[in-house]
């Protein structure tokens, strides 16, 4: 059953569950943070509205900088602003930031130890019709590998709002991964959020498999959990929204409780959240694992549902992975 302590959306499994793009939560969170802290500045590279930074730029035009289509400059200018005490938020599509400007992020932000917050929208293949060039499925790998970087992949718009507000209060670089498409709102305003803390969203009486999910696919994992329980298979589902620093204690506890882990993410299997979990468990409590994600391929055009199914990240695929790992 759903964890009652987290005050999750009571309409979780209703057909009419509210769906909002995760990136909207970033826009709203930045606006709230900007009202509270006058040192916050926003920088955009010609994608102000589609990354939802327009809420901030319209309210605080004097604290908003439009750099044009220049993501390398975007990152390094933000570093300079941070050097003077500002808290810069930069936004673009994840493919371009932290994709195109990775080295600038490494050198001028992380190596320099500047608390720039990077919002990468349109992450994952659910970007849909735009096709593979715009579907960032490598961003978790390239950000979590940089020292000092905090990596957050919120599951819905409300968690994205809370993550954005929380990241404004940290003194480290932060990458916030956002999705374009409408996503079921699984949490509520009352659901707690803390950077670095995982949460158990679903727990059956006798969980046999642990499912660790991040981002919007958490909803597919919850749907899989419900269906599995109806078939008499108990699982526990963890929302791992902070990928770095990794909540190792909770991951190891889940591994000990279930003995089998399935990870679920809209990202390449290589180097992503599942890899981070595997790095932890291989050292501390090695157990069988299955990985739901993109298997070393590029994306393509299609509807989000078509693509999620095609690349094996839908509810059916998660159930199949649970069944498979039970036989191992």
């Amino acid at each position: 059953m759903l964890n009652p302590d987290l005050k999750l959306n009571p309409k979780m499994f209703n057909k009419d569950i509210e769906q909002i793009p995760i990136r909207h939560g970033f826009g709203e969170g930045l606006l709230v943070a900007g009202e509270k802290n006058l040192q916050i500045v926003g920088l955009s590279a010609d994608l102000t509205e589609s990354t939802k930074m327009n809420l901030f730029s319209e309210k605080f035009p004097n604290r908003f900088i439009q750099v044009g289509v220049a993501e390398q400059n975007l990152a390094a200018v933000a570093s300079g602003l941070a050097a003077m005490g500002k808290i810069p938020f930069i936004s673009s599509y994840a493919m371009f930031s932290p994709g195109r400007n990775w080295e600038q992020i490494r050198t001028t932000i992380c190596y320099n130890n500047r608390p720039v917050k990077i919002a990468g929208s349109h992450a994952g293949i659910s970007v849909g019709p735009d096709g593979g060039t715009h579907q960032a499925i490598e961003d978790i790998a390239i950000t979590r590998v940089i020292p000092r970087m905090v990596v957050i992949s919120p599951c819905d718009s409300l968690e994205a709002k809370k993550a954005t507000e929380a990241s404004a209060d940290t003194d480290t670089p932060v990458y916030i991964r956002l999705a374009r498409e409408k996503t079921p709102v699984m949490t509520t305003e009352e659901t707690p959020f803390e950077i670095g803390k995982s949460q158990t969203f679903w727990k059956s009486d006798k969980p046999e498999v642990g499912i660790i999910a991040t981002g919007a696919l958490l909803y597919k994992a919850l749907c899989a959990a419900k269906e599995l329980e109806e078939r008499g298979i108990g699982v526990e589902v963890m929302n791992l929204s902070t990928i770095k620093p990794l909540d190792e204690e909770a991951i190891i506890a889940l591994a000990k409780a279930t003995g089998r882990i399935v990870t679920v993410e809209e990202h390449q299997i290589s180097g992503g959240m599942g890899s981070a979990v595997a790095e932890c468990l291989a050292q501390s409590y090695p157990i069988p694992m299955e990985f739901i994600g993109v298997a070393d391929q590029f994306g393509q055009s299609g509807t989000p549902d078509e693509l999620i199914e095609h690349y094996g990240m839908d509810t059916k695929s998660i159930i199949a992975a649970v069944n498979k790992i039970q036989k191992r």
Partner: protein
Amino acid sequence: MELTDEKIIELKEKANDIRISIIDTLEDAGSGHTAGPLDMADIFTVLFFHTLKHNPKDPDWSERDRLVLSNGHICPVLYAAMAYTGYFPKEELKTLRKFGSRLQGHPHRDFLPMLETSSGPLGEGLSQAVGMALADKIDHGLTSDRYIYALLSDAELECGQTWEASMLAGKEKLQNLTAVIDRNNIQIDGYTENVMPLESVSDKWRAWNWHVIEIDGHNIEEIADAFEAAKSIFGKPTVIIAHTIAGKGVRAFERDYRWHGKPPDKKEEQMAINELRTLGGKIRSEHQ
């Protein structure tokens, strides 16, 4: 501060001392870049001993000017200027590029927190200086009397990001931003005009709404005047194109691109230091 004749002589002597120190530390290090640090010695001397508003005893002084070295590989001249103005003991220069040293091969703030930025990868410094100037513009509008200095190499004009930054600075009318280009005409692979023709450098910056000043990068008075002139320009950032002689001060190194990325050996060090101490054989050195 007034630039008197005595002050000019003093600055020339300081620049010569800094060149000697650069040769000495590079030979000790056994690796590193020689030409750039030598040809920027006069400009660093004017900045650190005359132009910059800073306090070596209080590096975090909030009202200080900011100096961003973009081409981090010429850091021996930055370290020497810092040591000679009292940021840290001169003896520490000997640790350049060695394990555990605060003086990393390319500047790193983790090791030397008094640096404004870590640098090394080319083309990124101007952007950071633009960010600093923007922060002042947000806080103080056009009334800020703090100056942000970005020091670039000419080969960095081959990096697209330099132009991204220059466009933004022109658009934002960052009048308290001054960029200096070390126009020494060399880079690792050869002469810039063979590797990638850059001229007309001045026209390119003018096109992005910058005020352009061209100077002899070894003339102390011209350097100091250019920094002063930049302060009087309203509504535009200023770029000082400093024409320099690569490896300036040691005739055997001058204008030869092969000295871009290698240090002197022991023999070359002695020859170079002797030449600098005797001002090219014009005077007898007290060491002779």
